[in-house]
């Protein structure tokens, strides 16, 4: 298989959810060749160079499939950080932050579901499962947001925001009182 074919096959399998730059495909092929995981074959009549996986490449691939993805390797969760900061920053309506995110996430889920609804052909299974992965991840986020909301109701915001002025108006009032003293 040569570079362009690899890109097309990858994108068909994943429904274009992870678009590949052709340059990136060739860079990766060169690295794989350097590491002896693939080997180049003779150029075709049209000037394309196909590659073949080596035994070492097959072993590496088997290892990749057999190894679970580590959560530690994923980027930090910006939403969790945002919620944590919202809780400790004066003047932020945490409930509104939660609801805004929930609406946006459900909207995204609606879009994915609408795409999924267009086809239930067996041939599209790999693509549908990729969309399902995104739907389930978004669902987990909504469930976590529900959990945050219930926790807020139960415990209320941390005391730091109770001690600190909660709006610019109040901050101004506080300053005036301070000046009057």
């Amino acid at each position, binding site marked *: 298989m040569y570079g362009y074919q690899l890109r097309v096959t990858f994108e068909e399998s994943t429904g274009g959810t992870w678009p590949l730059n052709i340059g990136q495909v060739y860079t990766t092929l060169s690295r794989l060749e350097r590491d002896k995981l693939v080997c180049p074959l003779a150029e075709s009549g049209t000037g394309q160079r196909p590659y073949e996986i080596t035994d070492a490449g097959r072993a590496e691939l088997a290892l990749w499939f057999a190894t679970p993805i580590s959560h530690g390797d994923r980027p930090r969760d910006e939403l969790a950080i945002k919620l944590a900061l919202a809780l400790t920053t004066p003047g932020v309506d945490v409930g509104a932050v939660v609801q805004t995110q*929930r609406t946006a996430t459900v909207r995204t889920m609606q879009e994915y579901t609408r795409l999924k609804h267009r*086809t239930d052909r067996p041939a599209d299974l790999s693509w549908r499962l990729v969309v399902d992965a995104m739907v389930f991840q978004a669902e987990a986020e909504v469930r976590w947001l529900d959990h945050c909301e219930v926790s807020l109701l139960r415990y209320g915001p941390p005391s730091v925001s109770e001690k600190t002025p909660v709006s610019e108006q109040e901050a101004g009032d506080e300053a005036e009182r301070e000046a009057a003293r």
Partner: protein
Amino acid sequence: MTVLELRAVHRVHGAGQTAVHALRGVTLTVGAGELVAVMGPSGSGKSTLLSLAGGLDRPTEGDVVVDGTVLGGCSRRGLAALRRRRIGYVFQDLNLLSSLTAAENVALPLELDGMRVRRARRLAQEALCEVDLDGYGPRFPDEMSGGQQQRVAIARALVGQRRLVLADEPTGALDSQTGEAVLRLLRSKVDGGAAGVLVTHEARHAAWADRVVFLRDGLIVDTSGPLDQPEELLTTPGGAG
């Protein structure tokens, strides 16, 4: 065309200090070909909203309008007739009468409404075919899987002239694949011209709707609709991208 309309609907259970405000002024319109999901935690007013929409309960204030008829202006008998003719329900359980066959369950609202048995059964068979249950008419509910029973319930909800389907956690007891098949079917029936309200606390199920309404403490706090061009998100091999 608007099929269901809730106009500034309030529902208060009890009175005085122990009064519970289940709904505090909810306004909602659902058109033909539209599926609206109502999401909210327990006690947010979801089930009250569905009962009012289906004429099973009356608002303390405000109006519920189905197919142009204000339910508050109907007699008990008139309301019962409207429910039989216009409104279908799909619940999590207790959907079907166990002593009746699938075809008899689907034909029941038509027969109760005075339709001749033979005609009602024919319409029921057609409705069962539409939900891919051709040949299942003579089976009793306990001879069918949970998913098949829910398909019968959807056939019954939309048999005859009924154009409004109200669903309360219709996939509750089903596994994810079977549940998705039920939602896919509900979606198709709505795309065919019915109006639907789906009450759920699961975002994955609500995502099948055109609009998602978020209910908190008896109030709509937010609404989510899909983008006009979801193709922009992905390239679909199904031909959209």
